[in-house]
């Protein structure tokens, strides 16, 4: 974007104004610049403070367990006061993985439908609905998960899954309704809006010349769409990673349906488990002594670092994608 040059502030000799007005102008501009600049730089301070405070808060636990916290598989606040977060990390990875497995194909379909297969007016309305899904708070998804989704899956879906795939370890064992798979499904429902709207934007950014070239070569609609998808590949990866970040940080909905049970491995996908975010929400208010709180803050620190890496990754990939598109299309 073009900028107004700063010569205006510093050389006022072109202005035929009185000295008083001139000083007023000068002061006002400087104040405005300082004020907005200070506000903008507050973001740096906040981020630095978050990192410092999280490390400071988890210092007790870091000193006590060191690396053992990351690879430990025991969480016993009551008796031995030993804390290890590896199963929590696993739980986060597995539930987010399930969410991506279910959510990504659906989201890509929605993105394609909105940008390629639909009249613009209809696409506008449906996009709006999809974005409404993203506006619903996670605690309401959790409420719905407890009272509607979990019973529905328990009675109408899981028994059949077990009948078909029950010979594997993954789909064996008792069915509660909540559990790992239910957690993954609710995360999938929650990340579909995010990935859909970003991927729609990415598809829409593909220059029309690509589509026209394909059609003029006599390609079918589907072949054209395939080219559009390959053109938008890195943007799509960015969209997926964004959704992953959303899934990893999701707290309330998952803590309400996953069952909140600390164990190294669940016996099956129907069993209860835990995630990094869920354990913080569930045990923070019950943590009675300093080391316990410190361990929970360290869980938060792990979550912080994981989402930081995911975010930076998504950004690098999408930036590259945008640059590529600009390079080819010269938009």
């Amino acid at each position, binding site marked *: 974007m073009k900028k107004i040059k700063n010569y205006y502030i510093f050389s006022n000799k072109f202005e035929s104004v009185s000295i008083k007005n001139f000083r007023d102008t000068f002061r*006002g501009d400087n104040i405005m610049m300082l004020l907005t600049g200070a506000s903008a730089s507050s*973001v740096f301070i906040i981020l630095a403070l978050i990192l410092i405070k999280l490390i400071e808060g988890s210092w007790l636990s870091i000193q006590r367990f060191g690396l053992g916290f990351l690879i430990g598989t025991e969480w016993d606040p009551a008796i031995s006061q030993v804390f290890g977060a590896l199963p929590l990390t696993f739980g986060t990875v597995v539930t987010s993985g399930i969410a991506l497995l279910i959510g990504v194909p659906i989201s890509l379909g929605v993105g394609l439908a909105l940008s390629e297969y639909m009249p613009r007016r209809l696409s506008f309305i449906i996009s709006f609905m999809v974005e409404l899904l993203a506006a619903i708070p996670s605690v309401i998804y959790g*409420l719905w998960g407890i009272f509607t989704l979990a019973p529905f899956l328990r009675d109408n879906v899981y028994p059949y899954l077990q009948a078909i795939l029950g010979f594997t370890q993954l789909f064996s064992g008792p069915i509660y309704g909540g559990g790992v798979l239910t957690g993954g499904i609710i995360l999938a429902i929650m990340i579909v809006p995010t990935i859909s709207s970003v991927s729609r934007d990415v598809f829409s950014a593909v220059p029309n010349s690509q589509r026209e070239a394909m059609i003029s070569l006599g390609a079918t609609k589907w072949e054209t769409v395939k080219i559009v998808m390959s053109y938008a590949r890195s943007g799509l990866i960015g969209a997926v990673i964004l959704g992953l970040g959303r899934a990893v940080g999701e707290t309330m909905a998952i803590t309400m349906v996953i069952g909140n049970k600390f164990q190294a491995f669940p016996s099956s996908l129907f069993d209860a488990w835990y995630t990094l975010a869920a354990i913080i929400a569930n045990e923070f208010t019950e943590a009675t002594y300093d080391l316990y709180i410190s361990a929970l803050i360290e869980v938060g620190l792990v979550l912080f670092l994981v989402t930081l890496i995911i975010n930076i990754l998504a950004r690098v990939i999408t930036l590259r994608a945008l640059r590529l598109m600009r390079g080819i299309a010269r938009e």
Partner: protein
Amino acid sequence: MKALVWLALVVALIPLFIIIIEIFSKGASNINIDILISPMPTVGERGGGIANAIQGTLITICLASILGVPLGVLSGIFLSEYGDVKISSTVRLFNDVLSGFPSIVIGIFSYTLIVTYIGFSVMAAAFALAIIMIPIVTRTTEEALKIVPLTVREAALALGISRWRTLVYIVIRGAKRGIVTGILLAIARVAGESAPVLITMGYWRWWFSGLNRPVANLALNIYLFAVSPFENWRNLAWASALVLTAIILFINLGLRIFTKEKYI
């Protein structure tokens, strides 16, 4: 292939319809004027309502806005009007990173910064929510200001109006609608946040009693009610969900209808 794409769309929209229908039907069957005006029930008590939760949510959002909105709007102004390319892109990157953090991490941050000194309180919760608001308000403000044509600024400057007056009286006035949209979006977002509130304030069943004490919260009450064993508490959960969803959808729908943004 076309069929598959449409199938994906239908599958994605089914949960939306079910959730909305459930909230409105179950909420409507449980809500009455009594619930809206009476405070939270104690354990085992019949009746009770969500009045103090509504009050607490409003207070928390107001406090969060007092901190978050000015910071966000001013940052947005800086990005659009003053920052050169290098500084702006750095600030933008940091804003994106900040908005990517899980809200529970922000909650822990507020806990270590504020709760450890003054205890569980509205202030701590509002601080956490303000941090969540800042990136949203910043981005939407910047976008809104960029929509104002450069020629408008040039015309004002050509008349000899100083830069800051041009900004305040002309540019911001032109972008007012977009800025308000951003603020309302941020409010709709934090109104439903419960994880950071849980960590900074905890549960509270009484009325507001000072800035260094907790207040009740609608979103958090849904969690508390939903996992409770009492029948009437669960009904209250659905009533709270209806009120909260109604507020959030109302804001979103209103913005869609009254602003001509392509998408927000």
